[in-house]
């Protein structure tokens, strides 16, 4: 190729680039590439959603429900409308009412469809359908924005979605992986709170057990102190109502409680070790509000020290089968509790220990 030919070629190339820039065509090409990128990932989410729906249908069929489509259609689109927040009076009471109503409505629908299976199996069905509903919701929201963005040629919307897609896909895959644990009732990472509570109860001399509001309350004697161990009633998929129950126990004891200790799973920051234990002050509970505020109110009303212990993990570890390393951290957490009890209370004290989280696969 002679130097004249090369020069002509470069001039044509520059001309093409110039035309693309002044006409805005390069932006259209970029937009089409972004849309293609989103659609490829959206198809992956769709296939995960379809696959998981089939898995749940098979699960329901094995449990004796031949026509699972009716139940799935009702539950996959089930929603809860948030309470009015511009008028905050009684918002916790209203939110608690709506959350309990959601819980009871789903329970009732599943119970009506599957009357011949046990309470634990029903709880697994409820949680499994909730996971598929979450994947379905992700799929529908992404589909909504891609259709809207493409129709309106909204560059900003499509660009934001493009860069969010890897994170959205990652969360979808975590939910997909979590389905296995929920279908078979395996303990999950989020269950570290109830697991530590169970391990502690195993070490104690348990004197009584009662169930209030889907939550187990075990009274025990440990190191010459009265322990009241609170955890969701297991081994089904259940988080119970630890806040309301702790509040009730504190009122029953007229505030004569020397320490409230909550144990929960916490999402770690990138770079932190999974299974590491940290302690602090406050109520370690990740509910939307009603349970947490109930613990805080009970503690502040009677000036009871409120301590927290967390075991760190990432989202994948929290929602899927508990990793061996995190399981071993639970054993270490029991020793940690021993230390807190000895340091913060004296013999004869009354201590409430609450294991917060989903108790699936963990009895008591």
């Amino acid at each position, binding site marked *: 190729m002679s130097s004249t030919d090369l020069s002509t070629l470069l001039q044509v190339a520059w001309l093409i680039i110039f035309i693309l820039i002044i006409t805005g065509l390069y932006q259209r090409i970029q937009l089409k590439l972004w849309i293609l990128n989103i659609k490829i990932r959206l198809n992956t989410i769709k296939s995960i959603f379809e696959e998981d729906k089939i898995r749940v249908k098979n699960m329901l069929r094995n449990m004796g429900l031949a026509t699972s489509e009716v139940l799935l259609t009702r539950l996959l689109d089930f929603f809860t409308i948030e309470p009015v927040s511009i008028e905050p009076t009684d918002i916790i009471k209203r939110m608690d009412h709506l959350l309990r109503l959601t819980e009871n409505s789903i329970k009732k629908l599943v119970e009506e469809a599957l009357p011949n299976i046990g309470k634990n199996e029903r709880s697994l069905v409820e949680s499994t359908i909730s996971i598929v509903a979450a994947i379905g919701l992700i799929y529908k929201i992404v589909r909504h924005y891609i259709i809207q963005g493409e129709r309106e040629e909204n560059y900003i919307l499509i660009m934001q979605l493009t860069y969010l897609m890897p994170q959205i896909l990652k969360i979808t895959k975590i939910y997909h992986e979590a389905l296995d644990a929920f279908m078979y009732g395996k303990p999950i990472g989020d269950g570290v709170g109830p697991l530590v509570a*169970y391990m502690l109860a195993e070490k104690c001399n348990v004197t009584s057990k009662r169930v209030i509001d889907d939550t187990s309350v075990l009274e025990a004697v440990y190191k010459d102190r009265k322990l009241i161990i609170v955890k969701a009633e297991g081994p089904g998929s259940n988080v119970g109502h630890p806040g309301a129950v702790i509040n009730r126990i504190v009122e029953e004891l007229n505030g004569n409680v020397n320490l409230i200790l909550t144990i929960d799973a916490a999402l770690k920051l990138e770079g932190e070790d999974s299974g590491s234990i940290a302690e602090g002050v406050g109520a370690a509970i990740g509910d939307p509000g009603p349970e947490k505020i109930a613990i805080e109110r009970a503690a502040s009303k009677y000036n009871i020290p409120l301590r927290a212990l967390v075991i760190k993990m990432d989202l994948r570890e929290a929602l899927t*089968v508990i990793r*061996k390393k995190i399981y071993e951290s639970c054993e270490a957490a029991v020793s940690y509790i021993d230390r807190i009890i000895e340091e913060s209370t004296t013999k004869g004290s009354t201590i409430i220990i609450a294991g917060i989280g989903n108790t699936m696969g963990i009895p008591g």
Partner: protein
Amino acid sequence: MALLILLVLYMIYESYIKKRREKESTYVTREALICLNCRYVIEKDFEPGDFIGLIKDTCPRCGGKMKIKGIYGVEVRI
């Protein structure tokens, strides 16, 4: 030209490393059973319906009853 080739090779290497880094590990669910008599511990695969604290199987050493001590995921390297 050499610089361009080097740049392309570096980009291919980077994407390969990124893919390897992103490859998710797989886990199998195992359960640890402890003998209530001699405290002997065995590990086996999880079976549907099992939960922590469930009494199942007999001890291969003393024939005593065994209890599920723990259920957890163990990483599998393929």
